[in-house]
């Protein structure tokens, strides 16, 4: 089977792992369900503010890799479910998820080409921004106070992106060619 050598430009047709293991709907939705279940676990009361939003992480992962399967609609539905599970105002997390997915879909071509650590760096402001958006939107809607410690969950999510994205790559048989996206050949630093 022909493989794209590192350093050469990407072939027109999908090859290698991408052809062998494309992101199927079953995989995408199953992993989203697992991520949602992880957030629904009975976490200890004292550490709730540190629990990262696994649902959002899975959503962003698939928005980068399979934007036709996980897009704004899925983000909206998952956000509503998260709102109900968290007992917060309906639409608060849905709004934040939609905004994060929108940013991802705009930056997708760039993010696709990064390896996992660089992706984590690029996504850190987004994961942090989602928590900030939820807190600010809640305050603007007249809730009496917000617990700013919850911003820490965004940082935890950015750190956990490294192992989790690597794990997802492994589980779905996806191989990243470091530093080479659809934009063209690798740039030597």
């Amino acid at each position: 089977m022909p493989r794209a050598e590192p350093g050469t430009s990407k072939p027109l047709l999908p090859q290698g792992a991408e052809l062998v293991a494309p992101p199927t709907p079953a995989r995408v939705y199953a992993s989203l369900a697992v991520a949602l279940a992880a957030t629904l676990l009975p976490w200890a009361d004292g550490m709730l503010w540190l629990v990262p939003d696994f649902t959002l992480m899975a959503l962003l992962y698939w928005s980068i890799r399979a934007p036709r399967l996980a897009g704004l609609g899925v983000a909206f539905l998952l956000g509503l479910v998260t709102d109900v599970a968290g007992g917060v105002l309906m639409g608060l997390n849905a709004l934040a998820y939609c905004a994060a997915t929108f940013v991802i879909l705009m930056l997708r071509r760039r993010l696709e080409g990064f390896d996992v650590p660089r992706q984590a760096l690029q996504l850190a402001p987004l994961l942090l921004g989602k928590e900030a958006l939820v807190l600010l939107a809640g305050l603007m809607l007249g809730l009496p106070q917000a617990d700013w410690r919850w911003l820490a969950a965004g940082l935890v999510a950015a750190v956990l992106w490294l192992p989790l994205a690597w794990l997802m790559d492994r589980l779905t048989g996806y191989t990243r060619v470091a530093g080479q996206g659809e934009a063209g050949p690798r740039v030597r630093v």
Partner: protein
Amino acid sequence: MSPASHAPMFVREMGLPLRFSLYVLLCLFLLALDARYAALSGLRAGLNAVLHPVQTALAQPWHWLRGAGGFFVTHAEVSAENVELRQREERLRADLLDRRALADENAQLRALLALPPRPGVIAVVGEIQAALPDPFARKVVINRGEAHGLAAGWPVVDATGLVGQVTRVFPWTAEVTLLTDRGQAAPVQNQRNGLRIIVSGQGSDSLLEVRFLDAHADLKVGDLLYTSGIDGVYPAGIPVAEVVHTEQPRHSPFARALCRPLGGVGQYRHVLVLKPEPVAATVPPPQPSPRKSPESRHAPR
């Protein structure tokens, strides 16, 4: 490969910014409906009923772990605990006899003074399932809901004092907002001198606050605060807090006091939901003539 997993050759759909703005509008619409008009309780209850079995299944391994931990206790521990519980039960039984006598006496005295009978309560035992991941409020979920006859607004207590209030009821679960939440308040009475004040949460787990206290109010460190029962939500006489700090006014006309909640807010697994006893069915209504005049006088306000 599924046909949806790659981009179509001809784009025949709305652009991404347009779709995004439509979703944002939809979210804002939902937020406004929920925040201002509380119109989404049906949708929320429905989604919650779907989520409930999933959450119960996910929590099950933890229950088993706790059960397994409880299985490996020694015989000595169990028998020691048994002796202690027996002694406690005897003491409580003696107290109960005393209480019955007092209740009878109280009922007779109230009848003599033509006062309406004290509202009674029925306790429903619930187990705390989880704390809600809500950055805006201090809430827990208990495993009793509409199916067990709960309704929003009922007080929740534990063995040591007031814990909070039921704020949302779902088919099999209910959401309890803790007393320490910033939006919660309870009218209380100082046990020492009967001073009536309002205790509010301030978002901290271990402290409550008396916000607008008269500068000359007689409130000292160590005073015990009990619910006064004048709000019609919390029945009278539930221990709420102990005053730990009072602050003289400096920049504002009001003094301030800090209290420690007596109820194990966020500590115990089991709580009691106090269901108001239907008094109207068992007891005849109070005499209308002496109560009519003050009510009609206060009505126009």
